[in-house]
């Protein structure tokens, strides 16, 4: 019997650790190693290729689960991982186990995400609700600098469907490169090359000059697009100054080709800019798991992020999570996006 996690493209960039989508295999391998460290477990990770071939071949879900028999045949599949059911499946397939493995046997952990080298919250975030990631191709150069900052491009529904609407360009420092903006020099600038027929209000832009010498807040722009034919890719070129740790500072110019097409592998951002959790909606959706209809959640009714924190979130220790306790979880989730170390739930 073997277990593997498959490391795939980020489901929610910027969430818990401000991680951004990797653009090279080396960067994705770094993510997988960080996942091993941050989430623990002796269960090994398999890393999907950068074209996301395994994700595509297996149904494009963020947390799906498959059981494969020794000949390579799929014998169970489900859209969402459900460990208790996996156990039942395996008992049906191979019989009961002699000894049930405990959590401590597989060294589960919930470590903090990577630390960032400077303050994050010094620039107000742009709101971009319901915007979706666009397909883009970073123009990698063989001996070029790493993409310390990575473009996150999103479009609203109007832009995706008709070519007219809002375009979000966010340049996010990648925590894996330990880089921070060098604010002592010219702020980040972008330039869009617009093919014929494309009308965008601000084809060039510059980030606001800041007083702090360094920070890691994303540099964001929200552009009005009057016309963007779907068959006309744009080129975005960005120039920025970044320092890596305390060691060296660089000014780099990097480009992306941007397409008016939704990136099914782009994930959904859940940052401050992408929208914080709404307390009422979160509570309503969480209580959808209240199978016995008593208005509160027992541990057996809980799935997802709540589960590992159940005892800590159950502040009155009655064995149930009530609406008030779920609201506390929302506060905790939303503070994950604040600079520095994420707060832990109240004990």
């Amino acid at each position: 019997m073997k277990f593997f996690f498959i490391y795939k493209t980020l489901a929610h960039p910027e969430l818990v650790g401000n991680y951004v989508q990797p653009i090279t295999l080396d960067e994705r391998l770094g993510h997988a190693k960080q996942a091993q460290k941050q989430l623990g477990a002796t269960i090994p990770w398999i890393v999907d290729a950068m074209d996301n071939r395994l994700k595509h071949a297996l149904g494009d879900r963020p947390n799906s689960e498959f059981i494969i028999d020794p000949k390579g045949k799929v014998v169970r599949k489900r859209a969402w991982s459900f460990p208790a059911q996996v156990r039942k499946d395996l008992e049906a397939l191979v019989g009961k186990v002699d000894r049930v493995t405990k959590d401590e046997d597989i060294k589960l952990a919930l470590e903090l995400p990577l630390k960032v080298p400077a303050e994050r919250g010094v620039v107000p975030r742009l709101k971009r609700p319901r915007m979706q990631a666009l397909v883009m191709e970073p123009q990698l150069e063989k001996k070029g600098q790493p993409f310390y900052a990575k473009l996150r491009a999103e479009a609203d529904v109007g832009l995706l469907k008709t070519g007219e609407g809002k375009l979000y360009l966010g340049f996010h420092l990648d925590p894996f490169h330990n880089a921070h903006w060098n604010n002592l020099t010219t702020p980040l600038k972008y330039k869009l090359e617009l093919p014929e027929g494309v009308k965008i209000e601000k084809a060039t832009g510059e980030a606001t000059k800041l007083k702090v010498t360094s920070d890691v807040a994303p540099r964001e722009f929200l552009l009005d697009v009057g016309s963007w034919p779907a068959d006309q890719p744009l080129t975005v070129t960005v120039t920025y100054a970044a320092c890596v740790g305390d060691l060296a500072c660089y000014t780099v110019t990097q480009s992306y080709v941007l397409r008016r097409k939704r990136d099914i592998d782009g994930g959904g951002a859940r940052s401050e800019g992408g929208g914080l959790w709404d307390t009422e909606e979160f509570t309503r959706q969480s209580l959808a798991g209240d199978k016995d209809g008593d208005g509160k959640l027992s541990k057996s009714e809980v799935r997802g992020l709540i589960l590992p924190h159940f005892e800590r979130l159950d502040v009155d220790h009655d064995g149930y999570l009530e609406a008030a306790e779920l609201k506390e979880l929302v506060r905790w989730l939303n503070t994950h996006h604040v600079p520095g170390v994420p707060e832990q739930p109240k004990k």
Partner: protein
Amino acid sequence: MRYFSQFGLGLLVATLLSGPQLALAQKEKKDEDFLVEKPAVGEMLPDVNVYNPDGKEFKTADLRGHYTVLTFGCLT
């Protein structure tokens, strides 16, 4: 080895998603659709090249020989 954890796997996987995210995503694509998509139960796992975290490339067909549980996840 026929040892596996009832909850351990869940604890780890549970850090990878949240309930509301799950519910929102379900609206986009229903779970029952997933079950009939390829590979359906009874079909072979597609053979594609993947990597271990050290960058060593291998084929998913190399996983044959054991009952194997595969679970997708990521840092966020």
